C-alpha cells in the first residue's frame, strides 16, 4: 500500500472513531426512548444490534487509525524511548490536542450544567440519558486525540516494507 492510500485509510479510521463517538450515545438515547414505549416482555434486539454495530465501528476504526499505524504507541510511549523526530511530532500533536480538548471539555461542562439546571427544558434529555457515557467518551477522546492528529498527517512506513523499500 503506498503512502497516500495508507494516509487515506488512517484518515477514514479517524473519521470512523469520531463518528462512533457521536453515534454511540445517539443510538443509546433513541434505544432508551424506544424501550420506554415497548411492551415489557419484548426485548429491543434491533437497538441492541445497532449499539453493537457502532461499537464494532469504534473498535475497527481504533485498530486502523491508531493500532496498525503505530500512532497509539507513539503518543503513549515514554519520551526517552523516542527519537528527535518522533518527539517533535508527538509534542506538536499533543499541544494541538490539548487546545482542542480544552474547548471540548468547556462545551461539555456547559452542556452538563445546562442539563442539570433545566435551562433548555425537555431538549436536554439527551444529556440526562447519556451523561455517564459522554463523560467516558471524554476520557477516550483524551487518549486518542494526539494519535488522531498524527494519524491525520503522518504516514509511517510499515516495518515489513522497510527492507525492500531502500529506494533513493
Amino acid at each position: 500500500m503506498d503512502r497516500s492510500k495508507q494516509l487515506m485509510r488512517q484518515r477514514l479510521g479517524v473519521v470512523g472513531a469520531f463518528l462512533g463517538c457521536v453515534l454511540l450515545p445517539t443510538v443509546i438515547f433513541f434505544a432508551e426512548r424506544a424501550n420506554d414505549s415497548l411492551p415489557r416482555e419484548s426485548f429491543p434486539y434491533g437497538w441492541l444490534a445497532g449499539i453493537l454495530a457502532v461499537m464494532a465501528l469504534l473498535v475497527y476504526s481504533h485498530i486502523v487509525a491508531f493500532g496498525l499505524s503505530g500512532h497509539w504507541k507513539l503518543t503513549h510511549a515514554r519520551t526517552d524511548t523516542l527519537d528527535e523526530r518522533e518527539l517533535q511530532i508527538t509534542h506538536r500533536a499533543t499541544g494541538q490536542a490539548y487546545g482542542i480538548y480544552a474547548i471540548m471539555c468547556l462545551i461539555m461542562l456547559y452542556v452538563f450544567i445546562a442539563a442539570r439546571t433545566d435551562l433548555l427544558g425537555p431538549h436536554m434529555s439527551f444529556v440526562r440519558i447519556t451523561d455517564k457515557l459522554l463523560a467516558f467518551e471524554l476520557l477516550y477522546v483524551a487518549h486518542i486525540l494526539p494519535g488522531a492528529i498524527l494519524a491525520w498527517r503522518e504516514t509511517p512506513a510499515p516495518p515489513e516494507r522497510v527492507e525492500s523499500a531502500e529506494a533513493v
Partner: protein
Amino acid sequence: MKARKLYNRIAVLREERGVSRKELAKVIGVNYQTVGYLERGEYNPSLDLAFKISEFFELPVDFIFSTEPMKPLSQVLMERQAQGGSGYGSK
C-alpha cells in the same frame, strides 16, 4: 517559524556503502522510519544528528547537507577534476 528545506545525500551514500536504513538508524540512534523521513527531505535533523550522520559516513556535514538542491556526485567529481582537485569536499 517555518524551517528551510534541507537537501541531503544520505540515500545516495547509504546505497553506495550498502547500508540498510535499519543499520544506519541503529548507529545514529534513531528509528529507521526517521532515516526515511531524512532521506526524503521531510525532516530536518538537529545539529547533533547531522554530526552523527557525518561521522558515520566520515564526510563533512556540508557535503551531506545543503540548503540548495544537491548536484549529482559524478558532476561534483568532474568539476573537482577539472579544477585540479580530487574527490569530495564541495557541493
